[in-house]
């Protein structure tokens, strides 16, 4: 699929490929390549959330890192509004970097413990030359925005709980007034009672500032709650993507069906009455993916065709599905 996109798309990713070298031997020579992202296309309309789900090693975090250029793409393109950012040189990218920001998973590791929260939030303002002369005021605004006490700007990360630290991480990303936030597992390190507050905050911020989110998570319940559209990744490719209710209520790809059926629901009668598709085996190594359809080694519908030909995404029931056996 080629994502052409329209004027109102905030982020358009087209056939993106990201590879990592496999090194080994005496001098750490490059002895192979892992394709972590293998031709992913998606587009996110401005002000909306695209939820990217998948299990460990499916490439969803690499995709997020490629989009903000922490990792270089092998091929394909990323367009931020009207700017093609994947082809920009390092200095040219600096001028648009402000517009797309990443929020990390681990609020314990992503904040410098030696800086006060005020200094952490002022840093991006200094780097981008924003709010000169009124930075302290801006820091207080940001703290208030994420539901923290502005008087706590002089405190250090250690003095905050996990949920509060994630709020600081979000405030730091918002400091430079971005259009797009890439949220990489922003709540997975948090307890449920704390997670709800962060999810509500993200929802509020999106409404208030018209932010666009690429929301990367393994928790399918959280993704459903926050996303307008959802994409399901398996071994570097998106196997199914479409409007969130359609995909969740009537999944078409066998992997999406298995994945959704495996998520426990906190309701004993519903949970015990569900049909569960238990997949056999494990995810194959991304260094040596199966030929054809990458899911075929675990799929109960697989035929010879699946090994011979890579299924191309087809438009079915309002969503794109990459499977030979879905009608």
């Amino acid at each position, binding site marked *: 699929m080629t994502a052409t996109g329209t004027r109102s798309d905030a982020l358009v990713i087209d056939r993106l490929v990201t590879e990592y070298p496999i090194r080994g031997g005496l001098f750490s020579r490059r002895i192979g390549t892992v394709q972590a992202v293998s031709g992913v296309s998606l587009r996110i309309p401005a002000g909306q959330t695209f939820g990217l789900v998948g*299990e*460990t090693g499916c490439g969803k975090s690499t995709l997020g890192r490629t989009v903000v250029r922490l990792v270089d793409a092998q091929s394909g393109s990323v367009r931020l509004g009207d700017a093609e950012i994947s082809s920009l040189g390092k200095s040219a990218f600096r001028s648009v970097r402000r517009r797309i920001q990443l929020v990390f998973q681990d609020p314990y590791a992503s904040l410098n413990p030696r800086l006060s929260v005020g200094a952490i939030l002022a840093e991006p303002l200094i780097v981008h030359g924003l709010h000169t002369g009124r930075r302290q005021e801006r820091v207080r605004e940001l703290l208030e925005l994420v539901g923290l006490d502005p008087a706590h700007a002089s405190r250090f990360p250690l003095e905050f*709980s996990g*949920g509060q630290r994630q709020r600081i991480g979000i405030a730091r990303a918002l400091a430079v007034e971005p259009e797009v936030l890439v949220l990489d597992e922003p709540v997975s390190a948090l*307890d*449920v*009672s*704390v*997670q*709800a*507050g962060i*999810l*509500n905050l993200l*929802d509020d911020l999106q409404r208030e500032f018209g932010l666009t989110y690429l929301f990367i998570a*393994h928790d*399918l*319940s*959280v993704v*459903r*709650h*926050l*996303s*307008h559209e959802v994409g399901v990744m398996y071994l570097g490719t998106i196997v199914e993507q479409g409007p*969130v*209710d359609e995909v*969740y209520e009537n999944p078409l790809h066998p992997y999406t069906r*298995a*994945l*959704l*059926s*495996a*998520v*426990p*629901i*906190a*309701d*004993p*009668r*519903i*949970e*015990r009455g569900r049909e*569960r598709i*238990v*997949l056999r085996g*494990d995810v194959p190594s991304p260094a040596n993916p199966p030929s054809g359809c990458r899911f075929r080694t675990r799929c109960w519908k697989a035929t010879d065709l699946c090994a011979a030909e890579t299924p191309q995404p087809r438009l079915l029931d309002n969503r794109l599905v990459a499977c030979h056996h879905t009608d």
Partner: protein
Amino acid sequence: MTHDDGPAEPLLVVDDLRVVFDTDRGPAVTVDGLSFEVRQGETLGIVGESGSGKSMTSLAILGLLPPTARVSGSIRFRGRELLPLSDREMRELRGNEISLVFQDALAALNPVMTVGDQLAEAVSVHHPKTSRDELHRRSIELLELVGIPSAETRIRQYPHEFSGGMRQRVDIAMAVANDPALLIADEPTTALDVTVQAQILDVLRTVQDRTGTTVMLVTHDLGVVAGTADRVLVMYAGNKVEEGPVEQTFYETAHPYTRGLLASLPRMDRRDRGERLFQIAGQPPAATALPSGCRFAPRCPSFAADPCAQSVPSPQTVGTDHVAACHRVANLREESA
């Protein structure tokens, strides 16, 4: 799956358990006045968030708390008091009558021993007279029980040759090697992806069906509890706040904390995009600075200065086999009725 032969003594009875650590900031009370029982053949789910004391409770039962822990109260297993037992006596019990499945299967396995040798050792350490042939046969049988294909070849492999899900299966096989009466599974699926989690929960269910072992499942995941537990115990800041049969606990939820937890969960089976999730205000207290009175009072939407800030509520009956430790539980019932 309870046995019908009369009101037998529960398999495990925990009474007024208290686990305290001395820290620079004063005593950290991680479990406080906790009482519950685990009945023969059942699956008891213990749920709580980080720091609720759920893992400390399982470590106390297993005698695995560090020597710096001050433990009081009583833990009776098959009528026998465990707390006064020596390390040697506990070692005889552990892995034999009571066993454990951890969250981190890799750390639980020896990296330089084949899986077969480890399974054999798990059996022979408690049954030293078992013959080599018998140990070999038993190792294969155990791997088959937990659904590991080609067990004959797999027993000659090392833990690193197994995937995360397969290692967790080996861990379960080790835990049930001696047909334990009680299996404590502490966050057994937390590190795993959902499709692998589904496989492991399936294995636990199969093992329980075939061996009849009693399971104490410690988890933060209310979904896992909803699907596997017969009864549920909810912990908060070292206390039991609610305990009851799984359906009553989920559908006739009595304690404001349990209610808050359930309401704060996004649901995969609902169109709730754009709806606000319920937020429990504030955060759990530090174990070194527990509030006087009800531990949940500072965050409770139903808080009343008297009595919530005055005294720790004791569990009171709110239904058949269903208790909640809340002063205001009667008022809450009226409000929601």
